């Protein structure tokens, strides 16, 4: 693992996470927040409203993704 980290070149090589441990799912959180902020920055007329609205949208996306994942687990088991 240390050899992998030493050989890692940012932006050239992928993160040495292998096939995908469970913690890598947390990398979806910054993705969701960035999507919410960019969308609200385009849509809203007043930028002062962006942080609150973006936080609300990010929470909604996460909740719906969790609900969809739970539904898929129930359907496939």
């Amino acid at each position, binding site marked *: 693992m240390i050899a992998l980290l030493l050989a890692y070149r940012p*932006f050239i090589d992928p993160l040495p996470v292998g096939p995908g441990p469970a913690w890598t799912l947390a990398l979806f959180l910054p993705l969701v927040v960035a999507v919410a902020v960019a969308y609200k920055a385009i849509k809203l007329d007043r930028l002062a409203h962006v942080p609150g609205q973006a936080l609300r949208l990010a929470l909604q996306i996460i909740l719906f993704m969790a609900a969809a994942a739970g539904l898929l687990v129930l359907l496939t088991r």
Partner: protein
Amino acid sequence: MPADHAPTPARSAPAAPGVSARAERRAAPPRRRGVATGVVAAVAGWTLPGLGHLVTGHTARGLVLAVTLGSLWLGGLLIGGLSVVDRQADPAWFLGQALLAPSLAADHYRARLVAEHRAAHPDAPGGRLVPADRPPFEPSFGRARELGTLYTSLAGLLNLLAMLDVVYRPVPPARARRPAGATPTAGGRGVA
């Protein structure tokens, strides 16, 4: 045209005494601009995210978009590496990624590295590079590839929204040219 972007008719009432210059600018009605100018701004936004808003005077909005979309795109490269931007291997994802011009540069750089590698190792097997080929960059697999592709493609798709927005967004009152002798007007909505 979205209701938020509809131009507000100017009112003839002068600004009340004691109103600050910033409040006057906010109260002044936004002006429409030509579509050609908007298209130029959209091309600027394609070159670098947020640049279209910056050049049309929407500084704060442009900075927010530049930081957000730039971080998303760079985050994708950081997680998935250079191989997530691959026109030949993932043409459908590349359509989304190409909505940000830096993706074209990244794909060109990746293709150049691969071509140099193949020229230096003519006996290497064809097709997609694998770690056993000792390529100039590590190919990404699994979750890193999924996330890197998603980050960069979503950055491109959101940049498409930003480009469409800058075409139709009115010029902020601070940059709109006023007729000579005109006084700032009250009413209307300011734009950031």
